[in-house]
């Protein structure tokens, strides 16, 4: 387990010195800040600021779905293209420790990125009376972290298949979009529709966490998706042994 921490720590430090991470952060905060400012401005005009802490979370989900592939694209693809994977896997490091360490580092970065956005609901809380519903806010952020963890795991898996970071980013985005829109096909009842609804990972977020409902079923969905995907990623890394 210690190796997971060491690899995650290095990964996390890498994000904080990489220009890409800062571009991503600036983009996120600019868009969210702009939306927040507009909402508050019009709220003040009408004399009624909407005390909804989720003002920024809704748009953030969309932005993160499109930008997370940029965070994950290099995780394993770059290690494979530069040959550093050989360095790590000839040290006493197990394949799964590498995969989980990489994913955890990326998750740490994303959590830090999302944590900063908590400032908007805080401001809103001060501006409104009696303040915002903290329960809904906590539930929405919890759901967001779980969903991002799953997206990062998917990105890690896809990155394991590639040596080109760009190809990894494109393929990750394709998989995420597929999992996003799959719920849209589930219009009626029936087994296939139920399955599609269950697989769609945004519905687990919007239907419950976003409304302030923490359902164990949704937690299980995101955690099992993450674990399964990371397991598959380890298998892909290990496949070098029998290729």
């Amino acid at each position: 387990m210690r190796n997971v921490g060491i690899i995650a720590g290095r990964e996390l430090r890498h994000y904080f010195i990489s220009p890409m991470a800062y571009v991503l952060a600036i983009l996120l905060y600019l868009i969210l800040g702009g939306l927040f400012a507009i909402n508050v401005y019009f709220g003040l005009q009408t004399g009624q600021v909407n005390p909804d802490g989720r003002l920024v979370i809704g748009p953030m989900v969309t932005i993160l779905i499109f930008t997370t592939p940029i965070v994950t694209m290099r995780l394993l693809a770059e290690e494979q293209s530069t040959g550093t994977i050989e360095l790590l896997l000839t040290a006493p490091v197990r394949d799964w420790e590498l995969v989980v360490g990489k994913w955890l580092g990326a998750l740490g970065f994303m959590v830090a990125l999302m944590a900063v956005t908590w400032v908007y609901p805080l401001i809103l809380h001060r501006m409104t009376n009696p303040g915002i519903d903290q329960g809904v806010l906590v539930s929405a952020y919890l759901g967001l972290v779980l969903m991002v963890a799953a997206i990062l795991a998917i990105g890690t898996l896809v990155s394991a298949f590639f040596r080109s970071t760009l190809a990894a980013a494109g393929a990750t985005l394709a998989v995420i979009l597929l999992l996003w829109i799959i719920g849209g096909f589930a219009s009626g009842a029936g087994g296939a529709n139920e399955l599609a609804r269950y697989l769609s990972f945004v519905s687990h977020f919007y239907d419950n966490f976003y409304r302030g409902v923490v359902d164990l079923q949704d937690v299980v969905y995101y955690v099992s998706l993450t674990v399964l995907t990371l397991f598959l990623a380890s298998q892909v890394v290990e496949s070098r042994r029998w290729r």
Partner: protein
Amino acid sequence: MIQAQSLTKFYGEHPAIRDLTFEARKGEILGFLGPNGAGKTTTMRILTGYMPPSRGRAQVAGFDVVEDSMEVRRRVGYLPETVPLYPELSVVEYLSFIGSLRRVASLDDRIDAVLEEVHLVERADSYIGNLSKGLRQRVGLAQALLHQPEVLILDEPTIGLDPAQIIEVRKLIQGLRSDRTVLLSTHILSEAQQICDRVVIINKGAIVAEDTPAHLQSQLAGAERLVVRVADGDAELRRRLQAVQGVVGVQDGPSGEIEISSSPGRDVRALVARTVVEAGHDLLELRAVGVSLEEIFLQLTADETAGSDGG
């Protein structure tokens, strides 16, 4: 220290190495010599625990590379052909990262010692991305040495370096031998000749020769050769030289000299000199030419190519 028995590795249908059996003893520098694509890197990846063989077994420092892969990895320092570096890290940050993964005790002291060993103390805080190729190679060596491994496996450690850097890295490797076993792959013959105690020549995935560089040279040299330079040498002189006892061939060299081949172990120099003088010619030069390891290598790998093409 390293024992490989019948190592075979298939990539799909294609065998990258076939039935490799060899041994490297403690304190020895073993050269793994072969053209590109001979299977050197594959063998090294098996010995470092990066991937298992399809068949056969290998033990490194007393541990099986498949069953005790983690124990092997703890005892092996490995420098892959493409030096695995993170350009955004400084030399010290990089070594700290590798050192913590390898659980190196008193890491800071070890980093200082290893930087001293590879002459990188002044560049300790430089970013790896800003270092020259030669310096990066030294950083790669430093990570391989950091945990004081019993066995050092170096894949083409001088490839892509300039002549001065090559000499420096070779010196460094020679200085490492004392209590370590070094397995080093190269496709440069002079390198194997200079720094290795023993050489395994590998071609198309199979071992074609194994011995000390000196032995290989003397055993496989076959006919010995003399180069003779005379004033006004004519056809008659060539006939006379051909008749000298022990001479098996007389040929014209590329720049007017006469090249004489003799039976192995026969020293025909005195007889050749006398024959030239007795024939009334002035002898300007007479020297023995050893067959270089390069020629042996080409001979062996060419034979092997012909053999495998036929099969």
